[in-house]
């Protein structure tokens, strides 16, 4: 009966054929594009000639190089987690407690967001330009010769710069949500500012810090592009090893086994984050206290120091992007600084196909991903049907797993009959929709939790069926989530590489893959030009989405920048 499957506290709905049909279709799609590939991948690892076996895994587990890559991955992820969380905390604390003028806060926010929406190589390229053998800083400025930029430090720094905004976006609402009256209370009891920070502010922020660390850890663990460019042979990590196993040695089974090893820590982090950290938030958003004046919790000297630190990091990011732009406009950075447009010319000649393909794929993935996110989010948050909770979990899988795993799973699942899709645009679109549509799901669920259920009941009481209610009441109210989901799918379709590098073909390729090719061929100029192009397109789209959102802005809708970061 319906009552038995209803979510606790929510009203059991009468059986609704439309809901049942939609849930059924979504389940079919989820089964095909999330469950099936993962099962096929595990099958490739553990099943050989119809029997269960660990033979495929054993040689890998005894291989010293793979253990080294495993250790390297964990080490890199830990370092990125620590450094990125610290940087994120500094930014979040500054934003929440030192009352910057709004224009300065906006400037910092905008530049901090840059790395999140850029192609994954941008900071890596900028680091090579700056610190490489002929780098602007190492060679031109310091006159050093024969320096190598490749290895752990540069990879770690590049990833920390790229991912610390996640920590910032996670910690900012938490620090802002700590009632400053609590701090004021501690101060009034005679504690010094430092003591208040140590005994009140920091303990309250600890769940947030843990969450930020885990998010960064997972991001670094999954990062494929940065280590591929910067870590090189010095510092092999699992995602790149799996990629080389497949593209270099054509060993699909070995690649699958390596990504299985990667799956273990990724899954552990996912479960830890979901079941432990997310339940330990002290700070609740009540909507109150927004208007209160925060008390003077930071001394002027500390405020200046924090601000200086933020500005240095912000300037470093700005410098990276300026350098990228500059490099795309000169003949050869470090050798010949004559102005030229020839790198951009590449985009419209040999790079034209990649540009066009990417735009076509992103153009298809965007509306589909937006719709998918809103539909799944709505069903999961509002409707009672069989398998509701498992749908929520399954829909998050491809998003939570490292892209390398998803890409290899797709490659294995769709390479052979019965479902042969390798090399088609459809497969790349599906990969983006079911991977990044998850952001739209989360945004929809979050938004719906702020919209009282009685609105939908009111619509039903006035005679509207579930389809009409969704179209006329719910959809307009969750439009922000729709646009957020749409935006994320588009941005990631323009910038992602880790999963889709396994799915490109002669007939369909991507800008990011083109950038990677350029970098490996050491034609950094065109790589920079492509990166600039992607950034420009992404910013235009973000701007358009922002415009659309302000049109549709419903009461209680959350800001899109937070959602984009997630």
């Amino acid at each position, binding site marked *: *009966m*319906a*009552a038995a499957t209803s979510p*606790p506290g929510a*009203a*059991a*709905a*009468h059986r*609704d054929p439309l809901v049942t049909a939609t849930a059924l279709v979504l389940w079919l799609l989820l089964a095909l594009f999330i469950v099936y590939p993962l099962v096929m991948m595990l099958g490739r690892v553990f099943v050989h000639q119809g029997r269960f076996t660990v033979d495929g895994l054993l040689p890998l587990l005894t291989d010293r190089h793979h253990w080294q890559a495993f250790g390297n991955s964990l080490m890199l992820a830990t370092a990125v987690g620590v450094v990125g969380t610290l940087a994120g905390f500094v930014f979040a604390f500054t934003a929440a407690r030192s009352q910057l003028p709004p224009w300065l806060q906006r400037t910092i926010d905008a530049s901090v967001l840059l790395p999140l929406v850029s192609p994954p190589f941008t900071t890596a390229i900028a680091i090579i330009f700056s610190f490489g053998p002929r780098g602007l800083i190492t060679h031109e400025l310091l006159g050093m010769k024969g320096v190598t930029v490749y290895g752990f430090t540069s990879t770690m720094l590049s990833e920390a710069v790229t991912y610390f905004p996640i920590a910032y976006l996670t910690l900012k609402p938490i620090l802002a949500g700590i009632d400053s009256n609590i701090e004021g209370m501690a101060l009034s009891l005679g504690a010094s500012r430092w003591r208040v920070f140590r005994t009140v502010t920091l303990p309250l922020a600890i769940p947030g810090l843990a969450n930020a660390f885990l998010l960064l850890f997972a991001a670094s663990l999954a990062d494929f592009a940065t280590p591929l460019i910067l870590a090189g042979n010095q510092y092999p990590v699992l995602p790149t090893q799996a990629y080389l196993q497949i593209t270099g040695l054509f060993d699909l089974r070995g690649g699958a086994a390596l990504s299985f090893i990667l799956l273990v820590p990724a899954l552990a982090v996912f479960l830890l984050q979901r079941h432990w950290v997310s339940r330990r938030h002290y700070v609740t958003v009540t909507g109150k206290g927004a208007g209160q004046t925060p008390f003077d919790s930071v001394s002027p000297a500390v405020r200046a120091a924090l601000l200086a630190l933020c500005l240095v990091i912000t300037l470093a990011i700005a410098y990276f992007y300026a350098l990228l732009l500059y490099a795309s406009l000169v003949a050869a950075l470090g050798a010949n600084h004559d102005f030229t447009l020839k790198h951009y010319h590449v985009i419209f000649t040999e790079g034209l196909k990649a540009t066009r393909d990417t735009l076509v794929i992103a153009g298809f993935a965007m509306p589909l991903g937006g719709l998918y996110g809103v539909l799944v989010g709505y069903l999961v948050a509002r409707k009672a049907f069989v398998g509701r909770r498992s749908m929520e979990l399954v829909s998050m899988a491809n998003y939570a797993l490292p892209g390398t795993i998803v890409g290899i799973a797709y490659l294995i699942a769709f390479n052979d009959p019965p479902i042969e899709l390798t090399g088609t645009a459809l497969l790349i679109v599906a990969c983006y929709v079911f991977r990044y549509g998850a952001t739209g799901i989360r945004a929809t669920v979050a938004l719906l939790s702020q919209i*009282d259920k*009685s*609105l939908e*009941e*009111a*619509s*039903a*009481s*006035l*005679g*509207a*069926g*579930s389809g*009409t*209610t969704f179209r*006329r*009441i719910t959809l*307009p*109210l969750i439009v922000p989530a729709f646009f957020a989901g749409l935006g994320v799918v588009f941005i990631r379709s323009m910038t992602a590489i880790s999963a889709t590098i396994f799915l490109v073909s002669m007939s369909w390729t991507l800008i990011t893959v083109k950038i990677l090719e350029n970098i490996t061929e050491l034609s950094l100029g065109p790589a920079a030009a492509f990166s600039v192009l992607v950034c420009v397109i992404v910013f235009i789209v973000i701007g358009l989405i922002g415009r659309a959102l302000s049109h549709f802005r*419903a*009461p*209680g809708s959350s800001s899109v920048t937070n959602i984009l970061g997630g």
Partner: protein
Amino acid sequence: MTDHRLGVRVEGIAKRYQHRVKGEVWAARDVTLDVAPGEFLTLLGPSGCGKTTTLRMVAGFEVPDAGRVFFGDRDVSTLPANQRDIGFVFQNYALFPHLTIFENVAYGLRVRGKPDAEVRRAVTDVLALVGLSGYEPQFSSQLSGGEQQRVALARAIVIQPGVLLFDEPLSNLDARLRVQMRHEIRSLQRRLGITTIYVTHDQEEAMAVSDRIVVMNQGRIVQTGSAEDLYHRPHDAFVARFIGRINAVEARVTAVDGAGIEVQVLGRTLRLPRPAVPPAPGAAVQLMVRPEALRVGGEGAGAAGWAAKVTACTFLGEKVELHLDCGGQPLLAVRPGGPGAALPEGQSVVLDVGPAAWLLLPPEPTA
């Protein structure tokens, strides 16, 4: 206005749910109602008594675990809310924030596919009826609580529903507005003649609006009747305490015969009519009496009364509340606030109660 008045019949509906601490809890248990066409029936009870769950099952928002719901002769038990022809007014109004007031009210008509001209006319009429002409282009966030309440009401009645359902519609309004709105709801319902079920926890509100009141407690119906029935002839101590205020006094049965019983109360012996199930002689019982039934006389007003002392006196304008101490037993008396009605603290008085005013009630069930 409506020519399709429907009666509502609820037959033995029940709803269980899992409570995190208490385990399985009955939100409603064997609830049976019979609402006459055009009647205004109120479900009254403390929070958690099952009144809202019952209403939501009548509306079709919740599926009962057992029992049936009929609108007229039609069994609507398996119909979803949108096919039941109801109007529902929510506690939080549930106005659509992205639609104008006009579109909010027009929503149900548009769902029914009414032509534009008819929608325009009906919405204009109903907004005039609730006193909100000219508010059409506004959004709900620009309206006060009372105005939002009227829009919610207009939206529910414009579709001329067979049954009108209210879920604590006034609980978010301030006291003065609450009194005003309950009169408006009552007179509107009289004028339209729509069968109405109304949920509230406020006994005064229930008495003000209803033809009949159903008192619920712990998922069950305790008593059904007019406001006067419930006040003067409560079935048990729960109803007596919940409707109005009452004094409870410990007493002991001294004799039972064919015509009546004798009880010892506050040191005096009373003879009361014999209840249906008389307690055994020697049994401890509880007697109840309404505050206004206590007649307060000056010292020496009559030897037949109980001697008491005034411990506190509250002058409330049209009435005076006297807190009394009668041999250690605190009592509340209320009398009209005429000149000289207020008494000084410590004043000795004599109390008199007519035998008919005493209520001998079965004790409240313990969970």
